[in-house]
């Protein structure tokens, strides 16, 4: 009974988090901001849902879920970083939505001085 309630709370919180992530994809202004919605609340939502599921499972079956969240946590940052970087480079980022942009300041300075703008 108690495990059912705890499990349900986790599942619902996870679903809510995923929903908010999906909402962010629609409502936020530009690619990097949407990327935040696609990674943060989604990963949190997945974690909560897996936790909720694991509570109801026997340990043996729950162990596999550890792998799911582990690989999610390892791969999501890599992808989001690459996409964000390309977004900045290709200009799909809404510059008016930025309150500070210290990278642009540096790239301008380097362009003036004729240096390589932003080597990795």
């Amino acid at each position: 009974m108690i495990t059912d309630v705890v499990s349900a709370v986790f599942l619902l919180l996870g679903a809510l988090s995923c929903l908010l992530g999906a909402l962010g994809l629609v409502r936020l202004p530009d690619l990097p901001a949407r990327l935040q919605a696609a990674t943060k609340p989604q990963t949190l939502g997945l974690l909560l849902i897996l936790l909720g599921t694991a509570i109801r499972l026997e340990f043996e079956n729950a162990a596999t879920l550890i792998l799911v969240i582990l690989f999610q946590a390892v791969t999501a940052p890599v992808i989001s970083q690459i996409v964000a970087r390309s977004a900045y480079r290709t200009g799909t980022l809404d510059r008016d939505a930025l309150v500070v942009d210290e990278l642009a300041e540096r790239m301008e300075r380097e362009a003036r001085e004729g240096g390589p703008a932003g080597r990795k």
Partner: protein
Amino acid sequence: MTVLRRWPQVLWLTVVWVLLWGTISVKIVIGGVLVAVAVTALFPLPLLPRLPFRPWALLQLGGHLLADLVVSGAQVAWETLRYGPGARAGIVAVPLLTESERITTFVAAATALTPGSVVLQIDRAGGRLYVYTLGLRGPADATRVRRQMERLQDRMMRTLGEKR
């Protein structure tokens, strides 16, 4: 035998194998070791100096990252609901505290879990990370991002750094 020197990779692959099976038995463990040795021998990764193993620091780091993820999820959700299309962001230059490329990589990956942030650009020569953060209201918030990143780097170095 380089496979022997790569025993941590063999161990890790065996653990993944056992987790994928979902049950533990002698046969599965032996099968896992065989597969892990084969994979390690056929697709060798470059041998790097081994990272220090500090279980307590690692556990603390894991806890902090988990807390960051929860705050992160809530913060991005708040930006979505409260500001939506009018959400503001910023790109902040953060001083890089470590020389090590591996720790820089870990820091960049962990940044993706800190509230609303992702690393856009790593300037190793200049010792700077450029961090995109959602939810900045004004230039003053940049200080907050810098302080947050400093703490993250500090924790990462305490866990995986060469020496203290």
